[in-house]
């Protein structure tokens, strides 16, 4: 039988160390909604989402209350709209119409984000994919809850540099289209390499075409729990440090597995995966940066940061994998800037630069995330940063992503406030040397030699 100590430990994690289930994400396939008629397509999409997800929020809240653990977000991921709208959408305006339908459906069922205004173009773009990508700025400006993503590369296909070039333009255009709100639209736009089909975390969630009709994916978190646990092994060797992180990740993930199975049972939707990520929030003590500092760094960005993050990311995976029957999504440590108070402090202290963050993305779970840069940054420079990040993903066979916010009207040293879970961020300097001759080359970067495994 469960004892006092164990009950106290769990409740301590929840009450004082910000342990939570970050998201229950219901994946919904929209492939069977497709039609050549835009009005029919909009109706099909709205009806399918509002029917399948009608009890999602209520069920999530009930599970949270019964287990006594916060389930912070209830969200929806859908089939990439670039595919779903390919028959009906003849213009960017048609795609914006679809985005509004998604926004309305999300509002009706009460979820805060719906992800999947996406295109998968790692090798080349269809006309429909290109229309969708060009519709992103208008779609993100016209909606509240819609999240967009573009997969522009993979280890198997190489990098679609035409899509990378276009993405740089689209990031900048999205910033312009939402400049009244500090270019907030860019916080809902992710450019990927090796995007997973089952990621439950926004803004990059979509339901891949390899998935079934509907699926429950759950994202767990708990940087605060890991930090507190390793405070207990300060000064000890790496063996003890790693064991402690693994054990903690195991415990956190078990909660995610429990919630995922319960949600699956109640919603009568198959369980997909648990994404065992350390996802920070701006709340005090909910920071990945603080874990790295507890490991032994004065500030994140100091020499040793990449090694410490590599260690952390790997132990989180090792501990978590055994705790869940199916692990997927992004799984690892996220290193967003605006969503992590420790990262913000490190930037303000001059310890953390964009270049160091890029190095860290070689070993973290995703990529350059929630980084505010000067609004005057050129499109080609943004494309260059995206290309670098995609190359890291392609060569290392990992997911990488870019979520940059060129804040229109703001420059280095100024602060941009996004609010809520998105936090706030200091605008960081970008290397201004030109790369336009590189990104303006046409075509794609071939797949790397180690992709030929057949």
């Amino acid at each position, binding site marked *: 039988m469960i004892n006092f100590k164990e009950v106290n430990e769990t409740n301590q994690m929840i009450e004082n160390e910000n342990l939570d289930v970050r998201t229950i994400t219901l994946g919904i396939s929209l492939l069977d909604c497709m039609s050549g008629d835009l009005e029919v397509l909009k109706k099909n999409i709205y009806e399918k989402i509002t029917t399948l997800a009608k009890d999602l929020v209520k069920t999530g809240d009930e599970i949270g209350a019964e287990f*006594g653990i916060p389930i912070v977000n209830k969200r929806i991921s859908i089939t990439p709209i670039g595919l779903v709208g390919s028959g009906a959408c003849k213009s960017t305006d048609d795609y914006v119409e679809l985005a509004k339908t998604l926004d309305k459906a999300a509002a009706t069922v009460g979820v805060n984000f719906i992800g999947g205004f996406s295109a998968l173009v790692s090798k080349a773009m269809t006309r429909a994919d290109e229309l969708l990508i060009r519709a992103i700025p208008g779609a993100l400006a016209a909606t509240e809850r819609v999240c967009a993503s573009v997969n522009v590369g993979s280890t198997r296909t190489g990098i679609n540099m035409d899509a990378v070039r276009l993405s740089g333009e689209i990031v900048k255009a999205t910033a312009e289209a939402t400049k009244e709100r500090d270019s907030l639209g860019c916080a809902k736009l992710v450019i990927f390499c090796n995007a997973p089909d089952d990621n439950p975390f926004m803004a990059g969630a979509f339901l891949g075409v390899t998935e079934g009709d509907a699926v429950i994916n759950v994202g767990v978190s708990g940087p605060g729990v890991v930090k507190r646990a390793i405070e207990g092994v300060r000064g000890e060797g790496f063996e003890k440090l790693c064991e402690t992180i693994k054990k903690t990740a195991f415990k956190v993930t078990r909660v995610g597995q429990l919630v995922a199975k319960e949600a699956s049972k109640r919603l009568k939707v198959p369980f997909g995966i648990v994404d065992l990520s350390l996802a920070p929030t701006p709340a005090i003590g909910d920071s990945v940066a603080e874990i790295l500092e507890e490991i032994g760094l004065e500030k994140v960005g100091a020499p040793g940061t990449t090694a410490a993050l590599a260690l952390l990311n790997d132990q989180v995976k090792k501990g978590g994998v055994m705790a869940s029957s199916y692990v997927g999504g992004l799984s690892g440590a996220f290193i967003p800037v605006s969503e992590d108070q420790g990262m913000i402090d490190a930037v303000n202290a001059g310890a953390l630069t964009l270049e160091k963050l890029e190095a860290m993305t070689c070993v973290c779970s995703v990529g350059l995330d929630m980084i505010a840069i000067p609004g005057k940054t050129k499109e080609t420079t943004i494309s260059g940063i995206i290309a670098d990040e995609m190359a890291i993903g392609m060569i290392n066979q990992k997911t990488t992503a870019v979520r940059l916010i060129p804040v229109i009207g703001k420059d280095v040293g100024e602060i941009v406030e996004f609010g809520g879970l998105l936090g706030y961020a200091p605008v960081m300097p970008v290397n201004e040397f030109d790369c336009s001759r590189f990104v303006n080359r046409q075509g794609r970067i071939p797949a790397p030699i180690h992709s030929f495994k057949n």
Partner: protein
Amino acid sequence: MKKCVITVVGKDKVGIIAGVCNYLADNGINVLDISQTIRDGFFNMMAIVDMENGAKKFDEVSRDLEVLGGEIGVTIHCQREEIFEKMHRL
């Protein structure tokens, strides 16, 4: 069996256990295991109960206990046992 864990934390005084247990008895909730300790003047109690044959639904019991805690001057939480079981047992 529908096992739940009730935790009670607060400043010690007369009648905390009685208050909680009377409520449980009145509502057909069976106590399977109970332990209690005082640490630095603070009362800590944990009870494992079976709600299978209880008169009320989980959310009602949970709400009632919260109100009761307010009346006695302690914090009472009620959670399904699986969260602890899954986290601490293979």
